[in-house]
């Protein structure tokens, strides 16, 4: 039995009969009312089997209303701005409590192509616990120059070593997680600067999860361009090094006990 589609965000049939892995797409959104409806439309078109959860991270614009107006998306409305890490941990907790087997994180600003969700999910199918949709892995024309690039190179080198696999884009917000990773991240997903990207990967590595990456294309962000000021890049480098040192050396809680299949359904 395949999950019943077209019943809006409820998906009760999928709750009772989880034959297929149940997929939740989590979209952390902060003041993205302009682009979000289009992203949700594309998600419905490209990933109809997935439930979509938009985590409104304390937006001050009409983000929440935009999600409520969309028939195919659930809204997790945080009362405060917690940052991407806080929004994602809430999303992982939702996924864990509602028995989802996979979570794919996708940015709300439209820079990630919803058509690539299938690639990330395929990587999970191949046995990865955490799948990264990577921007610099050959696909697309996304480029970063100067000191910021060095900082990202350093992060990639260190994390590739930690994960024992080649990772080219450790700050990507396009991620997939299977049930092991969901259980881990529902408990421990840092809200720090770079915590949702770099430190979460270190946490996954240290918990023994398999991390793999798949190339994806990045689209031009609808609003604004990343800053290339050398000072900001230097600050980024410093904070990245600090985040790495803290993440790699901090004491770790024992990995969570795996959830028995179907227990939360």
């Amino acid at each position, binding site marked *: 039995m395949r999950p019943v589609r077209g019943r809006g965000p409820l998906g009760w049939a999928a709750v009772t009969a989880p034959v297929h892995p149940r997929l939740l797409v989590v979209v952390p959104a902060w003041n993205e009312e302009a682009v979000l409806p289009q992203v949700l439309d594309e998600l419905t078109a490209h990933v109809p089997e997935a439930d979509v959860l938009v985590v409104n991270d304390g937006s001050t614009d009409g983000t929440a209303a935009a999600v409520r107006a969309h028939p195919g998306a659930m809204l997790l409305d945080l009362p*405060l701005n917690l940052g991407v890490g806080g929004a994602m941990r809430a999303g992982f907790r939702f996924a864990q*409590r509602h028995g989802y087997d996979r979570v794919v994180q996708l940015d709300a600003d439209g820079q990630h192509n919803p058509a690539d969700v299938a690639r990330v999910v395929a990587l999970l199918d191949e046995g990865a616990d955490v799948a990264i949709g990577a921007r610099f892995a050959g696909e697309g024309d996304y480029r970063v120059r100067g000191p910021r690039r060095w900082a990202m190179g350093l992060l990639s080198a260190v994390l590739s070593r930690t994960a024992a696999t080649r990772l080219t884009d450790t700050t990507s917000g396009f991620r997939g997680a299977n049930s092991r990773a969901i259980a881990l991240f529902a408990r421990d997903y840092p809200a720090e600067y770079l915590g949702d990207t770099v430190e979460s990967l270190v946490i996954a590595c240290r918990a023994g999860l398999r991390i793999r990456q798949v190339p994806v294309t990045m689209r031009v962000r609808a609003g604004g361009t990343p800053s290339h000021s050398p000072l900001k890049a230097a600050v980024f480098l410093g904070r990245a090094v600090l985040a790495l040192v803290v993440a790699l050396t901090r004491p770790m809680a024992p990995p969570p006990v795996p959830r028995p299949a179907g227990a939360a359904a």
Partner: protein
Amino acid sequence: MTGYAFAVGSCLALVAFLLVLLRTRKLREKYAVMWFVLALGVSVLSLFPGVVGPLARWAGVQTPVNLLFAASLLVLLLVCIQLSAEITALEEETRTLAEEVALLRLDVERGAIGPQASAAQSSAAPSSGAPSSAPGPTAPDPAAQLDEAPQQQEP
């Protein structure tokens, strides 16, 4: 000698003020302790100022008063770090509560909260359990909730 008396008097006033704050529940005991200890230390030094000299020689500080200044700076630094740590803990608690509020609100809106939630889940995490015949934000029938409530207590 009046300077020492002033110091002792200040400490007594500080202790009295702390007690007032504690009695009106404006200060928690775990934060008051360090201030009590500090007041005690200053009182001892004020009553027996002679001990500072040997202490300074032992620490290698030429002017004894500088030892006091350095020590007081160190104490204030530690207090600030402790407060930063407490703020961090508070922020983490706030974050968890904000997530929990949002998750509960979504459950309420989906009508998935209540005794129908699966018994396999902890009571702190009610969620979508049995299939509902009424998709949408309508809550389950309250009467049905009351009827089924005792069953959920049993494993």
